[in-house]
């Protein structure tokens, strides 16, 4: 009787271990990156883990969709208000990492007047491509202009992720993102307009 119970418990534990949900970094690669401040970070551990994140892809010399996208995301930044940097991060990852050094990214961020909590990151091309593949935004191979139109957003702590066009109405983007922010009694601010 006791033996059976132990066997059941052991089986359940084994089952629980085997079926343990994948940790997020198994999906979101924990690749090494550098921010616009030159800081070395790990993509998952330092930027995404436990946070509400908006992730898009761009490159500074892009003259087509990227400038408009960054403009639009700047409006999102405004709409996010005090949440940015506190419980929400914005991550713009360069798909032209050789040209987009931290110094170039810093200039770019200065030009757009981005606030703390919005990270521009660069790294090794293969690492960035891995991130793009894992986030489902690089189905069309090496063309760096592809998938610059998408914004992946989600809450790593709860595992809720979605995607939306980066050029979507900034108020709608901000509202969708803030819905993922857990309510804090101290702020008592309803999400959205």
């Amino acid at each position, binding site marked *: 009787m006791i033996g059976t119970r132990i066997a059941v418990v052991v089986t359940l534990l084994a089952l629980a271990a085997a079926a343990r949900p994948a940790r997020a970094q198994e999906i979101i690669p924990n690749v090494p990156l550098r921010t616009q401040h030159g800081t070395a970070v790990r993509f998952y551990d330092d930027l995404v883990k436990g946070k509400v994140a908006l992730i898009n892809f761009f490159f500074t010399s892009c003259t087509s969709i990227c400038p408009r996208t960054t403009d639009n995301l700047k409006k999102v930044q405004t709409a996010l208000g005090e949440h940015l940097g506190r419980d929400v991060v914005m991550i713009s990852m360069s798909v032209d990492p050789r040209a987009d050094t931290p110094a170039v990214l810093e200039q770019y961020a200065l030009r757009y007047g981005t606030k703390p909590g919005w990270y521009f990151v660069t790294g090794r091309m293969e690492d960035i491509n891995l991130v793009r593949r894992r986030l489902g*935004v690089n189905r069309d191979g090496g063309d760096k202009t592809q998938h610059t139109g998408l914004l992946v957003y989600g809450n790593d702590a709860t*595992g809720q992720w979605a995607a939306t066009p980066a050029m979507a109405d900034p108020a709608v983007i901000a509202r969708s993102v803030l819905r993922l922010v857990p309510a804090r009694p101290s702020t008592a601010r309803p999400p959205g307009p």
Partner: protein
Amino acid sequence: MRPRVSRRDLIKLGLMGTGYIVLGPEGRLARAESDGFTFQSPRTTPWQAELPLPAEPNPTASPLLDHPDAYRRFVDNQTTFFEIEAVERAVKFHPQLGDTAVWCYADRHIAPGATPSILGPTIKVRFGAYGEEVPGQPGRVRPKLAGGVLVRHHNNLPYDHRGFGMTRNTVHFHGGHVPARADGFPEDLVSPPDGFPNKVVFDRGEHYDYFYPMLDPGLVADNDIGRDHADCDETPSTLWYHDHLLDFTAANVYRGLAGFYLAFDDPNANSILSAPGKVALDIGDETFPDTDPFGHPTDPRILRLPSNDFDIPLVFQDKSFAADGSLVYNSFDHDGFLGDKVCVNGAIQPFLRVQRRKYRFRLLNGSNARIYQIVLADASGGRKPMTQIATEGGLMAAPIRNISGVLLYMAERVEVVVDFTSYAHGTELFLENRMRQDEGRKPDGVMSRGPQMLKFIVEGDPVEDPSSVPDVLRPFPKVTENEIRTAVRRTFEFERRHGAWVINGELAGQLTRPVATARLDRGEIWRLRNDSGGWWHPVHIHHEFCRVLSRNGKLPPLDERDGMAKKDTLLLRDNETVEVYVKFRDYIGPWVFHCHNLEHEDMAMMARFDVAP
């Protein structure tokens, strides 16, 4: 009986599907591909469980109505009230699989001891319009806007939810012809058009009232109450309801938020309306006598299609499961998520014992991104005939007999009648899926054999079968040349730019403004074009059924052609163009049309259109 495992038990064991992807049976990700992940669900032995058939909900006695003004002219003492709640529940998709936490629509008034199903309750209603004399004007008849169904949907999803899916709800009545506020708009509008509520999405702990008039179209007209005619040749038969939340429809429907809604003709409807009445009545009673007790012939319009126990809805949904039974989903697969197990009515490879007679099967593709080629076959793959009788818009003008298979794309409904009379006792037949599909973008072609999804076991001797499939079902006039000439014409070209969906060069999915505003009761011809090579898109237009005028400039295939069928979802293969006629007859308000590959929809492959007076 499905064992019940509490949510707390699941959490204690760490078995809740918290991730967008879960470790495979060997304790590691099954395979990491360059483009993402493929996943292998645990092996399951086929044909272990009977096909689940979700029960009808139990009406509630107390009238429910949050916004009496909005629905005042419809709701009366003939209205049926249901209460359905979205809840999380541990269920079994297969006897050998662990418990799976799903979200389902549950009947709030379920009988004690009844087994809850994975699918939502199957709502069955009668469809039609009654007439009444205009007071003080003898002989003048006007339609009476009475009856209908009011469903109060509650959101009781967990507060501490983790993992894919969003615990906010908006319920779309797919194929329904209902006021805009009951359609399940994907998101609250900050500045909605006049008369449309600010809030249509409801959160945990909240509810929303959906009123479905179930009236013949053409009758109501939001701008002009009291027309004296209806389009009586349009009764849908197989509809469904599912979540439609902006950005999260795919995850929420994959988690289980879907159910059937079956409509039948009301034999008493429109008997005193001046307009030509219904030409056929699908009343869901094959045993309806040919003569009344006095020997007089009964209504010759009454059809006797296989009914009740022999009228079976089947929804096909592909899912993946972790070793513990929890659902596996990849929120980062924006091309369309494919599962590796096809569930029929929420069971993996179930069986159904059938008698030697005719059956009506209502096939619904409730998958996110999988397209099926469904074939009835014997164990060695020999094809057996089926007769197609209906599409999304209800019964076709005439049956198509001896079809060899059914192409079924997302949200599409096809009804078939299968006659098992000639198969010997013990014969086993299967519904096979012969469509090969390895990625969400589109299928890879039809195979000579495919996985078996459902087994029929033929039992007994031939039985008396009062049902029949006549050569004429529900004929209706084609769109006339004059209607075509005077229609407003619009073109919607779907493209993909920088990975985002674009309609007519503009970013899709911006629901704050309409891409088109149609006028009530004014015919429109929409040319839908798919410019994205390599992708298939089943496009679903809300509010009205479409008449398919042409496909790639040619006469459309019979099963979607105007004069034969009515459709609410239209397949656009790569570089295809489909032309449809549509007339928005009754309800003003904001509506949407969108790709019903749910991941494409969530990636904003959607547009708002308005209908104005």
